[in-house]
């Protein structure tokens, strides 16, 4: 396949993936560009032993990791924000930037996942890869894929329940004030 074909068919996947892997919206476009520059450089070495999607995910993961690290380093240079505040800060950035409230909620939930669980959850529940494919791309046994998925689903449901409870609490509090 050519770079153009890959971009045409997979740009959406790459964009979704870097966003879901915690790259802030302001940096998402640059990250997608970084991914395709790597694709351009490595295309001749891609032997088709894994599927294109899994190969792209591997590149996305590495680009997203580097972006997050760089963001963290930049922030550390300016202030001493703790890791816990960092998650909240990212949620705030998403809140102001993202128009869609539900996607914002999903991003906030995913940012609270363990990295291993988040990867499995994104690939299975959003990108709909099979367990076998996820096992290949993450280089983990199929059983581990399933167990991480189970934990991620539990965390997903718990986070939504917490969110609902928080919303109700805020409604009650707002009602009490008026």
């Amino acid at each position, binding site marked *: *396949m*050519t*770079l*153009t*074909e890959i*971009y*045409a*068919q997979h*740009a*959406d996947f790459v*964009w*979704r993936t870097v*966003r*879901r892997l915690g790259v802030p919206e302001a940096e998402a*476009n*640059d990250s*997608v*560009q970084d991914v*395709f*520059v790597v694709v*351009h450089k490595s*295309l*001749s070495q*891609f032997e*088709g032993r894994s599927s294109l999607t899994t190969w792209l995910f591997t590149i996305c993961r590495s680009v997203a990791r580097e972006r997050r690290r760089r963001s963290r380093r930049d922030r550390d240079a300016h202030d001493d924000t703790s890791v816990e505040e960092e998650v909240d800060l990212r949620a705030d950035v998403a809140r102001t930037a993202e128009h*869609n409230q*539900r*996607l914002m*909620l*999903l991003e906030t939930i995913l940012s609270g996942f363990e990295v291993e669980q988040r990867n499995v959850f994104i690939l*299975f*529940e*959003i*990108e*709909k890869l*099979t*367990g076998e494919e996820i096992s290949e791309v993450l280089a983990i046994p*199929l*059983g581990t894929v*399933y167990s991480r*998925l189970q934990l991620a*689903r539990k965390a*997903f*449901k718990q986070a*939504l329940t917490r969110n609902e409870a928080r919303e109700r609490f805020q409604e009650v509090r707002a009602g009490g004030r008026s």
Partner: protein
Amino acid sequence: MKDPIPLSDDAAEATDFERSLLQMAQEERLPGDARLEIWAGIAKQCLPAVAVLPAAKLSATHWGVQLAPWTKGLILLAGLSGLGTGGYLLLKKAPITAPPAAVVAQAPAAVVTPSSAEPVAPEAPAVAQVGTEDAPHPAAREATPASSHDVASRETTLRDESLAVLEARRTLRSGDAAQALRLLDQARQRFPKGALGQEREALTIEALAKSGNAASAKRRAQAFLHAYPKSPYAADLQSIANP
């Protein structure tokens, strides 16, 4: 072991809200504007390095080592221009449809075949010029090796065209629809067979709508949607086509 059903499809395991949340994430698409901008950035970063390769180096090493894939790339390029359906597949899905020649040269075997292409949508009159970049040309039916000069020239054109369309878009975003229309018209004349036909037409429709020419914008938007129902710009143009 068998995979569980994804939550988005499993009404027994997931609530309506959970399913809708995940379905929304699955359907998320890269915005049309960003798609163009990112591709322009990729072209800028990836193409110059190849374009400046001296011809002697290309012939002595690049050609020698990579003759087979290079040839396949050229055949693909010719095929895209000459066969129509393969080109249409790219045109329909890609914001920039002409593959950077040097990239094609490095790619493995060409995979676009007429059988894998989607049916060609009937061409609508108002967007007859959209996508003519891949229109069949008799000369292109014979795969003849392009010179390094041709390759460099094609890449330069691609970059220049990207910049011209981006400039028009910036102008439109700044609120000057009339000037944006002029720039788009210039781009159309300068790159009549350019690779960014869809982008150009989508921006033209938007500029027409913003400059108060609703009837023309509507007609062209409808024609665009008819020709490219799955275009990344389709969602943006729906409100103009069906106000």
